[in-house]
């Protein structure tokens, strides 16, 4: 039987992943669902954020406290890392400040990469754009994999232990709470943003770009801002992934996991609907983890590794959803329009727009 202890471990294992993927999917939802920008290079900003966590904070501490003693940070990683963790474990304030700094820096990197990818995005037609973004997505991974002095090349790097000052059993709870908290904050932010006039403007551009332009809106600038914002969120998500795994290796970032899967989550859950996206993330993460849990039982009946069933299941699910429920499990909410009576009341000055019930 399943004990409560197992359930707690299952949740603790899963929650950080759900949190990180929720942030990636929400940022994609902002771009594609609300803005209509088909970002097929989501992995670019995600890997940017993750690589920053691998590259910056550790080297920063090593440089400030002269822990490397002139040695190469990546060649002598196994030597230098424990010293960094020692320094951080002794100083909670420094650890926390460094963590906040790292997260902000990851968002900035994501925003910067978003800015770069926004140059083609605002000019190109849908299909050219998708092809360009897809190809751009791989660049950073390629550099990370080959250039040793970014994140250690093929070997990868460890992430400094930001929570080293917390005793062991509670540490993982705190990390989980932190990541989940971040995800919830992002969710509230995106939800408020998309309900704001800016969100409605974004939708109007998605539905009819020419109309929005004719009404005096700067379509290019709105699109660019959206891509930069989504990039920042994706960078944050990358940092969250790096914190979850505790190490960064370019090999773990790819088109399938960080572009395609968020697309699946958004489309299955429901594009242009943040609750739908959240549901999509939950459904996907929980079911794929359950497959992992029951892997051994399944393995007895199959002549190949069970992990390869996941791509088949995923793609089939997505195709079924695309065919039979194209707007996802929770479709986009209809825009509330005023009743003719209310409209007349506003026109004659009896009511104000803000009084809407």
């Amino acid at each position, binding site marked *: 039987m399943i004990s409560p202890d197992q359930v707690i471990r299952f949740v603790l294992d899963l929650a950080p992943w759900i949190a990180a993927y929720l942030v990636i999917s929400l940022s994609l939802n902002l771009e594609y669902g609300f803005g209509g920008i088909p970002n097929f290079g989501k992995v670019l900003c995600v890997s940017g954020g993750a690589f920053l966590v691998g590259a910056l904070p550790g080297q920063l501490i090593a440089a400030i406290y002269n822990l490397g003693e002139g040695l190469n940070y990546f060649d002598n990683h196994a030597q230098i890392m424990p010293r960094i963790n020692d320094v951080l474990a002794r100083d909670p304030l420094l650890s926390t400040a460094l963590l906040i700094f790292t997260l902000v820096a990851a968002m900035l990197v994501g925003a910067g990469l978003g800015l770069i990818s926004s140059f083609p995005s605002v000019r190109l037609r849908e*299909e050219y754009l*998708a092809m360009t973004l897809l190809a*751009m997505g791989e*660049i950073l991974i390629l550099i990370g994999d080959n250039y040793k002095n970014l994140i250690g090349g093929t070997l990868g790097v460890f992430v400094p232990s930001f929570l080293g000052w917390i005793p062991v059993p509670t540490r993982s709870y705190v990390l989980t709470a932190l990541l989940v908290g971040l995800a919830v904050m992002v969710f509230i932010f995106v939800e408020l943003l998309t309900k704001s006039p800016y969100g409605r403007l974004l939708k109007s551009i998605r539905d009819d770009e020419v109309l929005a332009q004719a009404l005096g809106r700067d379509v290019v600038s709105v699109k660019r801002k959206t891509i930069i914002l989504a990039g920042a969120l994706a960078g944050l998500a990358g940092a969250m992934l790096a914190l979850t795994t505790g190490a960064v290796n370019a090999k773990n970032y790819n088109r399938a996991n960080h572009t395609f899967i968020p697309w699946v989550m958004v489309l299955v859950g429901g594009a242009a609907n943040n609750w739908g996206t959240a549901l999509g993330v939950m459904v996907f993460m929980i079911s794929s983890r359950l497959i992992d849990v029951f892997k051994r039982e399944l393995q007895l009946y199959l002549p190949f590794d069970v992990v390869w069933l996941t791509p088949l299941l995923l793609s089939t699910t997505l195709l079924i959803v695309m065919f039979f429920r194209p707007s996802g499990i929770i479709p986009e909410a209809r825009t509330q329009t005023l009743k003719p009576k209310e409209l007349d009341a506003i026109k004659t000055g009896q009511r104000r727009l803000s009084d809407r019930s």
Partner: protein
Amino acid sequence: MIDPAIVNTLVFSGIAAMSSVGLTLTYLTTRVPNFAHGSFLTIGAYMAVYWAQILQRSPYEVLWASALLGGVVSVAQYKIVLNPLRRRGASPTYQMIATLTVAFFIFGVMSILADYFGKTYKVRVNYIALRSFDLEIASIPLVMLLSLASVILSTILLYIFLNKTRTGVALRASIENPDLAQVLGINIERMYMLAWFIAGSLGGLAGLMYAMWLPVTTTAGDEFLPTIFASSILGGLSSIFGSLAGGVLVGAANSLIPQMIAALGFTEIIQYRPIIPLLIMSIVLLTIPQGITSMTIRWVRTAR
């Protein structure tokens, strides 16, 4: 002995040209880039790998099978996934996601097969190039000749097919004006299926050449996708012969530029070679977005 650099350039160009002409052909029919096009390469490549590794026979014996399999999968993708979605009025972005989904599906199937065959027959099926199975004619690797021949032959055959045969003309008509073609009694569905079959089989063929020269993994085709895109975009994305030329150019650039840089002493840079197609893509989109074919037409016009 022929310089390996020349072989590399020619083989790479051949693979890029064969695969990008297919991408362009399918793009012309659906107006949506097929993100699963790289998977046809993977399929063709693994056909050769299994044949060679399990039966220890020459991969060239299954040249036809690689092409046929690629074509069949391509038609299946069009018939089962894309066409029904289009009939339901799916947006281009939706169709693109569907092609990405197909790519993911094929990746799953290829991984399962690789795992199964690898375990059952105890052979190596990943990171393997079949160079040892290649034949040499006058100390020239056969794959280079095959690459050259397939580019030249497919250019000639496609030209004859599209301009001199009734079916080819009907195919062009269905692409350029589907409504009018239908009025004239052309079965445009069948024509599109034919286009997808040609595209897939050229992809399968390119995959076999890939396996003969470069190490194959189950993601080989997907990793090659940016090169295919760059070739097609260089060719203008809607010109069949443009993309053939684009493929040859991108393929050549892909192996010549790193060699030139390495000759200058920057050997470290070679590993960043996958960035080259991307650079080509960006430069083309920024300077000649209609591709090289538009350039020649403009040039001809000014010359007149």
